[in-house]
């Protein structure tokens, strides 16, 4: 079961590297977050820790619904060119993604989880998600995709937090959710401004500040 969920998360992350249209990414992201919420829910079911339920619901609401909605709204509003632009080709990006996954699995392979009963398979996946999220940000040229990469990273974090340590303390978790929401909103706002200023969301245009 856990292996399957982990696989799903990984595939969704790699899928984000392969999309053609930006709008596709939003749904993949929503799916990823949904799976995450599912994981939290499953953990709650196994451990009966109440805050995991809260986390699951929050994930579902914030990550699988609100954030995709905000992103979708932004995309519609800006009306970005449909095509994504990437630095690497489709295949090389796949190759790098695989290398990163291997690296993720490799670095975590010797870590022994303390007193965890259920979440062990999630650890390498979460680290890999973090890596892949960063790689999405590196690979894609559209500003918005970087927000999406960031959310992927955060999903990876969440996976660790939920699955392995059974969630952070409640208050902290709330704070983190709030933060993330604000981040996405601000990314949205900035995207608007960037689009209106540069008339493009291609971040390669934003390289006036160097040296």
């Amino acid at each position, binding site marked *: 079961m856990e292996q399957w969920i982990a696989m799903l998360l990984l595939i969704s992350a790699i899928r984000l590297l392969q999309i053609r249209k930006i709008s596709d990414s939003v749904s993949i992201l929503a799916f990823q977050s949904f799976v995450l919420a599912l994981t939290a829910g499953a953990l709650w079911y196994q451990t009966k*820790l109440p805050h995991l339920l809260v986390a699951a619901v929050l994930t579902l609401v914030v990550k699988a619904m609100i954030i995709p909605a905000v992103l979708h709204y932004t995309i519609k509003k800006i009306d970005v060119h449909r095509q994504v632009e990437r630095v690497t080709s489709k295949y090389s990006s796949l190759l790098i993604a695989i290398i990163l996954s291997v690296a993720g699995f490799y670095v975590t392979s*010797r*870590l*022994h*989880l*303390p*007193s965890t009963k259920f979440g062990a398979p999630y650890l390498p996946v979460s*680290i890999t998600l*973090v890596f892949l*999220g*960063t790689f999405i*940000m590196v690979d894609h040229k559209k*500003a918005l995709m*970087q927000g999406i990469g*960031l959310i992927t*990273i*955060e999903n*990876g*974090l969440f996976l*660790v*937090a939920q699955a*392995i*340590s*059974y*969630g*952070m*303390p*409640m*208050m*902290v978790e709330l*704070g*983190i959710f*709030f*933060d993330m929401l*604000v*981040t996405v909103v*601000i*990314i949205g706002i*900035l995207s608007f*401004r*960037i689009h209106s*200023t*540069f008339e493009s969301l291609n*971040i390669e245009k*934003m*390289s*006036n*500040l160097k*040296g």
Partner: protein
Amino acid sequence: MIDMGEVSLLLIIPLMTALLCWKINVRIGNKLQVAAALFNVVVGLFIAKNVFFHAPITGWHRLIYIDALSAFNVMLIVLIGFVASLYSVGYMHHEVAEKIIDAYKVRHYYLWFHLFLGTMLAVSVVNNLGFLWVGIELTTLVSALLVAFYRKGTSLEAAWKYLIMGSVGIAFALLGIIFLYLSGVDLFGESADSLNWTVLNQAAKQLNPQWTLIAFIFVLVGFGTKAGLAPMHFWLPDAHSQAPSPVSAVLSGVLLNTALYGIFRIYTIVNTTLDGKAAPYLIFFGLLSIAITVPFMLVQHDLKRMLAYSSVEHMGIITLGVGIGGALGLYGAVLHMFHHSMAKSLLFFAAGNINQKYHSKRMDRISGVVKAMPITGSIFLIAAFAITGTPPFNIFISEFTIMRAGFQSGHLAATVLFLLFVVLIFSGMMYYVVRMAFGEAPAKVEKKEMSRWSTVALFLPLIAVIVFGLYVPPFFQEIIQQVAVVLQGGKS
């Protein structure tokens, strides 16, 4: 003893000021925010004094914990915050007068500016590493808006880079904090306390070393991004150069310290757990940060970028000092934090005056500052000498203390490299400073100081820069000593 009233006051004042300034007339807002910042200085120093000379403060179900390190950071934030808000008045007035921004935008500026101060204060006083993280992320968000304040292409670009890199970094840091939490889970079970710094610190010896190390790596890269350690510093020159000058001063002077504060809190735990094996990472990143600024200092075109790179360098120095460790190294590092904040904010204020006077940040368009603005020019020169570690100014004292610590603890190669980089940076920076400060001012530049507000604000940090270079008062040494003890994990 002190109750939570003062602490809540410390946090509420900036928040209230921010909201008030947002709503009310700019003219009143100007004075109000200065008064509020001044009041906050009083509160902050009062708290700090209590912490330094009595005992650490704990409260709100151990959510708030102010020990010497926090109090030190609070002290820096309120001081620099006050001077920056004082400086902002003249700065913003000029920007409005020059029609660079609309008058109503000043209210937004104050809103974000004081919120920014508030978030940094919050970071400094919380005990819980999770909240520490939340606070640092909030500082990023708020300050990103300040960076984007001018809404020009470049400032948007800078803000975007800052935001993205900051967020990615901070995400890494969160992962680190989670790992740290994990390392203690066996010990404490799953309770909110196990993210509390005090708890972790006390139990540092029993934590799982494997997890703490990996946690430390993530935190180092994560908060390191925020603190501008190389090679994660790339956002920093952009953001610091594009922000309004008072904001740059706060960014360089305190925000970076606050991020370092995050690293050091965790480092203190981890280093105890790992029995000193975390120190080489700090030394490495410290040296790399110093080294990486060298080429950018030797060849540079933009005044504020140069200052921003200098901040990278100094963050490297502080990190190096902490990495070298020992009573002396930590002492030097803490002292350096203070000295750098003073000198760098001074430099940014002076640079702000220069930019406004010359309408450019390009250094080849700036010349004869001492002729155009004798006071600002002289102070700029002094600050530039100070920041490059020239005696008799304050930075030298702390840099030398770090070098001395390096030699004492046998980090000879690191210290010698440090010295080499510092002198290269000096030669790069002086090249431009001499060209800017001296010579004839362009004909179109009016030979007059900027507004009184902008000039007066220079004097507070100036006093610190000059006096602390020749005489560090005993009470202040005591303070630094206490902070160093905290950084050592509470053992003196």
